[in-house]
């Protein structure tokens, strides 16, 4: 018995065992799908041409329906009901997803096509001038709005990010029942309609202070009401996945909780925390409803966010949209393009930061290995 096991294999396999490779689409499959599509488009086009209808949307829609039916019939006759369902579902899933992505990208490209030429035609000046018209009364730009957006979002970040980090830490590190309540409150606040935040700050501050009530700082506070939950949730997700073993190791070595958090948890999660903050900034920079009642707007430069009305990008777009002249609307497109680029760039930055450092990399030891007592 044991002899046969110990024997070397009598016949080595002639060829190494290669995995079978399935072919994605057979020629037949391609013929069926392309054939159905061509037949559908041709038929509908013919019908539309005879009727004298020219409606691209209708042509597309009817062709798609007919294609779907034809492809279904072909698959059913050839492979049976099960394969037919599978193939139709594949077509439906792909077309739904592609349609949505195409529409979303169409929005991005529409804004680019409308806005980029405006920015480029007067390249540096569009980003520098304010809306007063300049010396000749005809050089407009979004410089003042950019300054406003940068200052307001920066202030909002300074206000909300520390609170967001601390709250996220609290939710993870504390075992008190209040932490659960806070968690639900943060969740609830992510769903706050943005106009409500604007309404709140407007009634609490702007109304009592009259004409001087609006300022960049008030807008920043309103923005931070929206930024706080977004950043907090993202930070929570990162802090929560810091391995418990790191925490326990530090505690076992006798570190007090505050040191564990400051020297172990936060450094371990720092990349994710930065990502959370940038995400919050990206989400906040485009918020309009909050600044609608609170920033004040206005065509002039105002570098001081603490006093006087201040413009910003979303508000500038809002102002331009309802202007009657085509030139004013084109400035709106320019502003929309600048805003979109800023927001998308911030998001991509967040992603790059998030993926660059490994989240669980143990922080490098600081130069002073001897800790203060």
């Amino acid at each position: 018995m044991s002899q046969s096991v110990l024997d070397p294999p009598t016949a080595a396999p002639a060829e190494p065992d290669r995995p079978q490779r399935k072919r994605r689409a057979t020629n037949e499959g391609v013929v069926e799908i392309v054939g159905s599509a061509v037949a559908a488009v041709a038929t509908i086009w013919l019908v539309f041409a005879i009727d004298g209808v020219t409606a691209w949307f209708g042509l597309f829609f009817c062709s798609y329906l007919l294609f779907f039916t034809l492809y279904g019939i072909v698959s059913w006759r050839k492979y049976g009901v099960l394969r037919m369902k599978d193939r139709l579902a594949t077509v439906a899933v792909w077309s739904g997803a592609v349609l949505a992505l195409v529409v979303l990208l169409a929005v991005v490209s529409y804004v680019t096509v409308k806005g980029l030429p405006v920015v480029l035609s007067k390249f540096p000046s569009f980003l520098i001038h304010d809306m007063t018209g300049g010396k000749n009364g005809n050089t407009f730009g979004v410089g003042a709005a950019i300054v406003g957006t940068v200052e307001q979002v920066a202030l909002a970040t300074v206000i909300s990010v520390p609170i967001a980090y601390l709250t996220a830490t609290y939710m993870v590190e504390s075992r008190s029942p209040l932490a659960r309540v806070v968690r639900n409150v943060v969740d609830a606040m992510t769903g706050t309609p943005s106009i409500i935040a604007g309404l709140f700050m407007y009634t609490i501050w702007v109304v009592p202070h009259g004409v001087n009530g609006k300022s960049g700082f008030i807008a920043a506070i309103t923005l931070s009401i929206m930024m706080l939950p977004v950043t907090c949730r993202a930070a929570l997700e990162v802090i929560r996945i810091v391995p418990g073993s790191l925490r326990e190791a530090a505690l076992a070595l006798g570190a007090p909780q505050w040191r564990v958090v400051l020297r172990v948890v936060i450094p371990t999660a720092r990349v994710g925390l930065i990502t959370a903050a940038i995400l919050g900034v990206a989400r906040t920079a485009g918020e309009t409803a909050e600044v609608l009642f609170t920033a004040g707007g206005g065509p002039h430069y105002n570098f001081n966010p603490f006093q006087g009305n201040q413009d910003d990008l979303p508000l500038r777009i809002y102002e331009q949209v309802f202007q009657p002249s085509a030139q004013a609307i084109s400035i709106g497109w320019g502003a929309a393009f600048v805003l979109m680029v800023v927001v998308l760039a911030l998001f991509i930055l967040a992603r790059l930061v998030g993926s660059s450092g490994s989240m669980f990399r143990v922080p490098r030891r600081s130069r002073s290995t001897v800790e203060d007592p």
Partner: protein
Amino acid sequence: MTAIAPVEPVEWDPADDIPIVLDKRQTGADRAFRILLGSSGAIVLVLLVGMLTFLGVKSWWALKTFKLDFFTGTVWSTPIHPGVLGILVGSVLIAVIAIAVALPVALSIALMINEYAPPRFRGWLTGLVDLLAVIPSIVFGFWGLEALNRYMNGPVSWLADHLGFIPIFRTTEPGNYADSVFICGLIVAIMIVPVVASVSREVMAQAPRDACEAALGLGGTKWGTVTDVILPFARNGIVGGALLGISRALGETMAVVLVLSSSNAVSKAILGPGNGDVAKQIADTFPVSGIHSQSELTLAGLTLFGTTLLFSLGGRVIAGRAARSAS
């Protein structure tokens, strides 16, 4: 032969073996740290409670004056007859249209990324969907106003002309199809697709791979795997994602402010002008309103806030349950 030193027997008295007493008291620094953490949590709490209380106080006058009539009236005409339904129904309709359009599309994006697309594109597609979720709503609104209104004019007028016998496609003003609740719903749908897709994709990705492979191994088709393994598994997550999407859609302000034409009464004709929107009404009229109208608008805002909270908390709870059952 090496000599092994004999081990000296250690003299010890069992009475000496006392366990070390650990000082369990927190140090002062720790206490301060906890207070710092707790107070930041409290700030968040106070913020929400403060917002609700303040808006509640502001809207008290309206609540006291109109009582239940406020919530049942179907025409919003401040300050005498504020019926919140006159503008709330529009908000809800927009959200319903948005989720009806967005949900199937978002699910197909999620399925496409997880199941159908080549694996090496998965990361890219996920990133792209998340990226599209941060485009500011005012940009979508601007696009809807300038582009979608124009694009949709043909199809919408066809709907109204040929399917007008269906009540929801009936129209009061033939030929006027721009700036309608329907168009707003479409724009908001485009905005919430990434949100819903991202949530449901994440849940679907947690579906047990061995069950999927078992289904395939038994000769099931890919679609069979989707309907019998992935979708039942991810059902709660999808519902949660959809509720989140609805709460987003309800609270959406700027796109609706830019696109929707002003109205203050309920209308069944979704293709034409008619139906207001709470957020739009507040954004358009709040600063120019008198004190009583402001109180009424605040109450309307609170009603919207409450509705949104209902959906978002429900969504979180259901999605959370899905995540727990998955792990």
